C-alpha cells in the first residue's frame, strides 16, 4: 500500500487519475446535491433546515477522520523516522482544515433556525473549534519553523497531542448535556436515521471524500516537486 506513495509512483498516479477523480467528484456531487436539495424529504421537526445536515455532517466526519490519520501517521514519523509520512500528513492538513471550517460555519448557520443562536459554547462545537486550532497550529508549525527536522517533530507532537480531542468530539454528546442530539448514524449500535436521509448523506460523504482525495494528491505532488526542485540545485 505504502509503495503507492513512493515519489515516482505518486506523480504517475496523480497525472493519470487527477482528471478521473475530478470528473467522478463532480458526478457524485451533482447526484448528492439533487438528493440533498430536492429529492430527500423534509424533517417532521426541523422542516427543510435539516438539509444543512448534508454538508455539515460529512464535513465534520471527514475533518475528524483526516486529523485522526494525521495523528496516527505522526506516531509513525516519531517512531520510524519516515519522512514520507510527514509529506502525507502535510498534504492532508489543508483539506482537513477546510472541512473543519465548513463544519463550523454550516453548523453555525444551522444553529440559528434550530436553536435560535449562531453560536453556543456547547461541548461539541467548542471541541470542533479546538480541532480547527490544532489544524492551524499543525500547518503553522511548517511555516514558522525553518529547520525541516524541527518542523516535522513539532507538527507531529501537535498532531499527537490533538488526538486527545478526537474522542472528546465523538463522545461529547454522550458525556455532557449539549445542544447537539446524540449521533443518529452508528456503526456498532442501531442507526436511527431513515434511509431516505441516509442515502443523500452517504452520497454527499462520498463526494466530500473524493474531493479530499483529489486535494491530497495535488498537494502531495506539489510537496514532492518542491523537494525535487531543491534536488535539481544539488545536481
Amino acid at each position, binding site marked *: 500500500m505504502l509503495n503507492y506513495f513512493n*515519489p*515516482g509512483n505518486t*506523480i*504517475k498516479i496523480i*497525472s493519470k487519475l487527477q482528471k478521473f477523480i475530478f470528473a467522478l467528484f463532480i458526478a457524485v456531487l451533482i447526484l448528492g*446535491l439533487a438528493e*440533498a*436539495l*430536492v429529492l430527500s424529504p*423534509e424533517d417532521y421537526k426541523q*422542516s*427543510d*433546515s435539516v*438539509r*444543512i445536515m448534508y*454538508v*455539515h455532517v460529512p*464535513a465534520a466526519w471527514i475533518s475528524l477522520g483526516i486529523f485522526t490519520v494525521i495523528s496516527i501517521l505522526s506516531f509513525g514519523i516519531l517512531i520510524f523516522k519516515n519522512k514520507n509520512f510527514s509529506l502525507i500528513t502535510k498534504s492532508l492538513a*489543508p*483539506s482537513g482544515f*477546510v472541512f473543519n*471550517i*465548513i463544519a463550523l*460555519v*454550516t453548523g453555525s*448557520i*444551522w444553529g*440559528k*433556525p434550530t436553536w435560535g443562536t449562531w453560536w453556543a459554547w456547547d461541548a461539541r462545537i467548542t471541541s470542533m473549534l479546538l480541532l480547527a486550532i490544532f489544524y492551524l497550529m499543525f500547518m503553522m508549525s511548517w511555516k514558522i519553523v525553518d529547520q525541516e527536522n524541527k518542523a516535522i517533530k513539532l507538527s507531529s507532537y501537535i498532531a499527537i497531542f490533538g488526538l486527545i480531542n478526537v474522542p472528546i468530539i465523538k463522545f461529547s454528546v454522550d458525556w455532557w448535556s449539549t445542544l447537539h442530539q446524540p449521533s443518529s448514524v452508528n456503526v456498532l449500535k442501531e442507526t436511527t436515521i431513515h434511509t431516505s436521509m441516509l442515502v443523500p448523506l452517504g452520497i454527499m460523504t462520498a463526494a466530500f471524500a473524493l*474531493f479530499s482525495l*483529489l*486535494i491530497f494528491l*495535488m*498537494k502531495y*505532488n*506539489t510537496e*514532492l*516537486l*518542491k523537494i*525535487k*526542485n531543491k534536488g*535539481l*540545485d544539488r*545536481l
Partner: protein
Amino acid sequence: MISEVLNMNGYGVYVFSSFVFTLVSFGVLYSVIKIQLNKELKVFETKFNNLEIEKAEIAKKQKTYREILAITSASKI
C-alpha cells in the same frame, strides 16, 4: 414550484447559504492548491531547461525526474 424550492418553508436562506459557502470553499481550496502545483511545475521546467547537458542526463536517469518530465514540457528529454 421554483419559488417553493428556493423558499424551503422559510429556511431557504439558511440552506442555500450553507451549500454556497461549502462550494465556494471547495473552489477556493482547489484553486489555491492548483496554483501552488502549477508554480512548482514552472519552477521545475525553468530549472531543468537551464541545466547543463550532463546534469540533465543524470536527472533523466532518475525515475522520479522522468515522471515529472512526463507531465511537464521541459525540453531536454
